[in-house]
């Protein structure tokens, strides 16, 4: 017998975290965004509770602007895992027709941040699994695995609870909650490697294919449905592209690529000279935009 490899350690740690949550929280839920990190997290949940199915529901805070391929995988994944799938769409955003083309940051704010808070309040969830990793962004690099939220879902970065060994203080008062990040210590490469090793199903958009695109504000955007308003001089062109991260399709930049298999994707990822969140419009604003959003309750 030998010492565990880094991936087995990470797997064991994530499983341990999930079991702690289920043992100590009253109403846990897994936030499921359909991306590759969510896929890994869901896979780990199936492992952690085997032969039981994971004893909590999946929650998708739907902005109605995700890629079609994502919606397809969402239904299938929940069914395969034998888990309840809860979908929440902010009724106010729906009524006001909030969209990423006309409303800028309001889109993220209403659909995602507010939508999430509504869903959490509606179901009274007190522990929410998220797939965020510390290597993604520098305010995330500072966050605890069990991240305390007050009754307004706010994060208080200056007063985080100490977190020793693998002992998590899960005591809280009514209305307060925890965001729990089982993938805290994983890197982008670890996630890819694990998907490869465990043969985890992910959205096909991560692999290169010919897709209709336009260039806008320095991003390559994919025209995923007829709601995409083209400017006068814009002409869609078919290009071989893929995505490093997935979000709302009008906000997620693609990269030109020919990588059609997982090893090819991993190879390309490792050879690239930019980080994965570079394709996300939300991060580019100012230094601490993510921290500010997180404080307000964004995942």
């Amino acid at each position, binding site marked *: *017998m*030998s*010492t*565990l*490899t*880094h*991936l*087995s350690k*990470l*797997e*064991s740690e994530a*499983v341990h975290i999930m*079991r*702690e949550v*289920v*043992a100590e929280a009253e109403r846990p839920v897994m936030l499921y965004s359909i991306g590759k990190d969510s896929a890994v997290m869901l896979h780990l949940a*199936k*492992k*952690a*509770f*085997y*032969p*039981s*199915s994971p004893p909590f529901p999946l929650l998708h805070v739907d902005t109605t602007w995700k890629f079609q391929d994502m919606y397809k995988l969402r239904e299938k994944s929940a069914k395969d895992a034998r888990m309840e799938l809860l979908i929440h769409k902010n009724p106010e955003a729906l009524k006001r027709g909030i969209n990423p083309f006309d409303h800028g940051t309001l889109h993220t704010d209403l659909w995602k941040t507010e939508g999430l808070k509504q869903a959490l309040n509606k179901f009274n969830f007190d522990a929410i699994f998220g797939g965020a990793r510390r290597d993604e*962004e520098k*305010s*995330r*690099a*500072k966050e*605890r695995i069990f991240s305390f939220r007050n009754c307004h879902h706010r994060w208080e*970065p*200056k007063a*985080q*609870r*100490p*977190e*020793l*060994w*693998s*002992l998590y*203080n899960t*005591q*809280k008062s009514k209305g307060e909650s925890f965001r729990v990040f089982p993938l*805290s*210590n994983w*890197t982008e*490469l670890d996630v890819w*490697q694990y998907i490869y090793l465990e043969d985890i199903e992910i959205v096909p958009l991560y692999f290169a294919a010919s897709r209709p695109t336009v260039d806008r504000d320095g991003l390559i955007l994919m025209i995923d449905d007829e709601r995409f308003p083209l400017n006068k001089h814009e002409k869609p062109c078919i290009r071989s592209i893929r995505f490093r991260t997935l979000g709302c399709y009008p906000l997620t930049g693609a990269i030109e690529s020919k990588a059609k298999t997982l*090893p090819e994707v*991993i*190879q390309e990822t*490792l050879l*690239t*000279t*930019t*980080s994965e969140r*570079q394709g996300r419009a939300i991060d580019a604003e100012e*230094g601490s935009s993510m*921290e*500010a959003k997180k404080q307000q309750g964004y995942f």
Partner: protein
Amino acid sequence: MSHFTKSAVYKPDALIAKDVNAYLKAHQKKLLLRFITCGSVDDGKSTLIGRLLFESKMLFEDHLKQLELDSKRTGTQGKNLDFALLLDGLEAEREQGITIDVAYRFFTTEKMKFIAADTPGHEQYTRNMITAASTAELAIILIDARKGVLTQTRRHSFLCKLIGINNFILAVNKMDLVKYSESTFKKIFSDYNEFAKKIGIKNITAIPVSGLLGDNITSPSINTTWYSGSTLMNRLENLVTPKKPKSKNGLKMPVQWVNRPNSNFRGFSGKIVDGSVKLGEKVRILPGGTLSEVSKIFVSDRKVEQAKTGESITLTFKDEVDCSRGQIITAADQPIEVADQFESKLIWMDEEDLVPGRSYYLKIGTQTVLATISTPKYQINVNTMEHMACKTLTLNTIGVANIIMDRPIAFTPYEKNKELGGFILIDKIRNSTAAAGLINFALRRSKNIHWQALDITRKDRANQKNQKARVIWLTGLSGSGKSTIANTLEQKLNNLGYHTFILDGDNVRHGLNKDLGFTEVDRIENIRRIGEVAKLMTDAGLVVITAFISPFKLEREMVRKMMEPNEFFEIYIDTPLAIAEKRDVKGLYAKARTGELKNFTGIDSPYEPPENPEIHIKSDQLSAVEAADLIVKKLFI
């Protein structure tokens, strides 16, 4: 800093382009090392980590671009890149130019995967540093070659050692600023060694480096030809060798969760914290000591024949035994200690001071129990290592105290196993993590004093008196009428044929508690002793009436928990302060107002009213007789 940035382009491993499958295969087998970097402000910690990330090709173009922007805007390094901005991820940190909380950074070399924790240097944020140190196997202690060993260097080294780190790298940084002087390096190393020896640090590697210029980071520097040791990266890669788990170590696994998908499967899930387990192995479930045999083992969802330290598994047993969260499954022939009292080091992490005698939640492994902490034996001055007398522990102080729990738990000393000997204390009201605890040893008295089983039970004694034993606990301000009501109540109960006894505040303080004063700590001890006496009296089958101010909620709860369920009745004697003060039967309020009497409840010491008393009596609206009648009616008829 141009030196740093010119080559700062991401340079991937050659193997990735050549044969990605071979690369993946190699990467799969990599081991993980978690380390922390500590040192004083401006010792160059962030620059060093920046350098390590850069040398292991983990700084992407967009990170560098962002860093350039940030450096111009808020940097503290003039025209140069300020690497602290890369790590100080919080707005407040960048604003103040200090590190508040730990930042985790990841990098990989051909041999290893690393998680680096960059920790705050300020004493104020010690708890965050401890958070990082608790999961690290190695510490890089940074020293500015111009400044030598500082107070902070000593404090950080001590804390690292305390929390169980055994591997140290002393990185003497900014060697370029001392002209790569060998004698400076040697002097610092010997100064540090002298100190390290005192606190028991043994494995130290000292390396002369420049984080800014890259000397001895990944390749030997031509500027330090007098140094023949390894580079920093080389040392990191080779310092912690894959240990073969000692096969003779028996299984130790705290049970996290009972897995019951259907009536045919009852599994026990948890992470193995020591040893290994095989199919058919005999195990013991602590603290009870029940024996059983392992019939199935799953590592996650894979059925296996054996599992080892660090793996998260699910076990099933041959027979139906009682086993639940909080218990520890051990090899049958290698059980661990069970006790309800031990001596422990405490690292206090809360803004509120330790209150000796008050009860806290104690979480260890997967179990949470109630615990009270004695007055600390001493406090350790983390800058000088001296032991100092103390009455309490305050934020960021470290001391040693005895801990008494409400039930026995299985554990090992922290030195033997962090996960079986490390615990946290949680404040019951504010839910804050109040302290980290490291168990030294079980107290002998808890190991040797066993409860004497008696033939006549408490029930027998109560039956003989034709009554149920109970405690009628009157609480309220001084002058609210507790003693008068207690007296009247006792007369009534005697007339009804009950065997009673009154414990009264003033009377107890003349005898049993005459050594106690009126500070918060003494008040808690006062109530604890009274609780114990009341408990003995209920064991004797009596109806006990108590009349104490008992101002703190937690202590009344503590007494309630000492009693059997439905034996403790809290009666809130509620009088507005103004009325109690007006009555002032004993003239105490007058003295308190003039300051002659200190810590007087209601004046300069708080009263925490009961939230859910069994009976709430507004004594400004009822006479003592009416109040006593009400109690008799509600509890005895």
